[in-house]
């Protein structure tokens, strides 16, 4: 694997993760639990779509085949998508959506902070912008997890249920493959193995404060690094890509 191939795949991984997460979050727009929160979550989706756009723009540039970010978003199949499995999981209720967000915000803040110290100027630039956004996202999602954990019996039950459904997908976030190895040699990627303990500590504290029971050990769902997804991604792409694929020569 060349460095260019690795960087392309790495940038897709980040771009796809942002894109699919934002696509999921934006399903809430117009359907939030109350008006203020509808707007708040949409703000978060907007930030993450924006990041997806920047990352895919860069991926297209790295690939150097004359494609645009839209070509990459709308004309790749599920096997060519590398978003983390957790992002494509259905939103479920608001507790599950918020908890997924807390898991990812916590990971992303550490990840993009590290990435901002690497050597690729474009990724550093995107990271610096993202850190500020994610700091706020995390404040939002963490405060809601605490509300659910310390709100009513029902909210705690739902939080625990969301946790049980999502927890098996969190391990994959730290998975590394040849892509990471190639880039790490040149200081172009983040060593994910160094993030795991800190993430577990922070999330563990949050969950303790929110009275969520964490199992001793869990089987980890994995596959996205190889483009192997759950059944959900196919539907997301079918919907998201339908219009450009129906009119492949059209400009929008």
């Amino acid at each position, binding site marked *: 694997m060349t460095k260019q191939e690795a960087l392309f795949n790495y940038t897709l991984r980040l771009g796809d993760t942002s894109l699919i997460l934002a696509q999921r979050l934006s399903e809430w*727009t*117009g359907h939030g639990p109350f*008006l203020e929160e509808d*707007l708040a979550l949409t703000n978060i989706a907007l930030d993450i779509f924006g990041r997806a*756009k920047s990352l895919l723009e860069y991926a297209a540039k790295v690939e150097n085949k004359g494609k645009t970010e839209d070509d990459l978003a709308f004309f790749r199949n599920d096997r060519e998508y590398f978003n983390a499995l957790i992002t494509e999981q259905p939103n479920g209720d608001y507790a599950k959506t918020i908890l997924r967000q807390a898991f990812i915000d916590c990971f992303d803040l550490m990840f993009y902070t590290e990435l901002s110290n690497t050597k690729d100027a474009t990724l550093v630039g995107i990271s610096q912008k993202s850190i500020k956004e994610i700091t706020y996202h995390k404040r939002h999602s963490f405060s809601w997890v605490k509300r659910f954990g310390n*709100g009513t019996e029902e909210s705690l039950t739902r939080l625990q249920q969301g946790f049980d459904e999502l927890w098996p997908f969190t391990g994959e976030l730290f998975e590394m493959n040849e892509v990471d190895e190639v880039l790490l040699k040149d200081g172009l990627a983040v060593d994910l193995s160094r993030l795991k303990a800190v993430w577990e500590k922070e999330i563990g504290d949050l969950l303790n404060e929110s009275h969520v029971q964490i199992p001793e050990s869990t089987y980890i769902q994995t596959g996205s690094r190889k483009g192997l997804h759950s059944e959900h991604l196919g539907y997301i792409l079918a919907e998201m890509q339908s*219009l450009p694929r129906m009119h492949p020569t059209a400009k929008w």
Partner: protein
Amino acid sequence: MGRVNVEEVFEAKLAKNDFIEPKDWMPENYRKHLIRQISQHAHSEILGMLPEGNWISRAPSLRAKLVLLAKVQDEGGHGLYLYTAAESLGISRDEMLNALLTGKAKYSSIFNYPTLSWADVGAVGWLVDGAAIMNQVMLQRSSYGPYSRAMVRICKEESFHQRQGYEIMTHLSFGTPEQKAMAQDALNRWWFPTLMMFGPPDRESPNSENALKWRIKRETNDQLRQRFVNQTVIQAEYLGLTIPDKGLVWNEAKKAYDFSEPDWAEFKNVIKGNGPCNKERLVSRNKSHKDGEWVRAAAAAYGKKQMEASLAA
């Protein structure tokens, strides 16, 4: 000390183009009229999130997706500004939401039409927001302070909405033949419903007289409708699209277009609840509200605990 005649003070303020503020004395009918008008306006913004929201997941480019998402979010924000303006008149948001969810409250009939293609997102921005802006620009000078201030804020934010819609129409109209057909089809379906947005003709508008007297409205439905038509014809011409009205002709004498009246029977029917999407829209709103019930209850319980903890500290 002679008692001030509150009614005279109120009338004097209107005469001087002064604003009426929440704590000022106001006639009960003025208050009622405002509550009805502002809450209907708020409901329209909230319901208006649905037809456009229908296309967020399918927006055909990342840029289009960002813009549409921001726009739908703005509608929610506008609903919120308006709800709080109405709340200053002594009605709670719960009461207003209940009226909406139970189908008692009215909202703009336009949002009961479906968005069938991406071009509809363009047409809604161009025509529906274009029509809404005419109304809203006028309402910035409405006599009730909180309403007027909300409208100033809304107008500032809305300014990109109509442009966004027209930009979509431009891409489609100068795009592939299929795209152009999509744009024409959307114009065909949205033209007359948009004209209905200004409300019934002046000869039949029961609320207009008081609204004008109180400066809650400042122009009549027909005046605004005429202005909208005059402004929109040239925009359609630029796109190479045909406005679906054979009666549309320039009238040199009145320096304005003559145009056919919308089908007022259809208008009344949609208002009554029989539009293509009335039921769906309300079902969707009710579902979101119901799904959010436990979230609000949890937040309220947590907020109460926080408050107690800070009092105990």
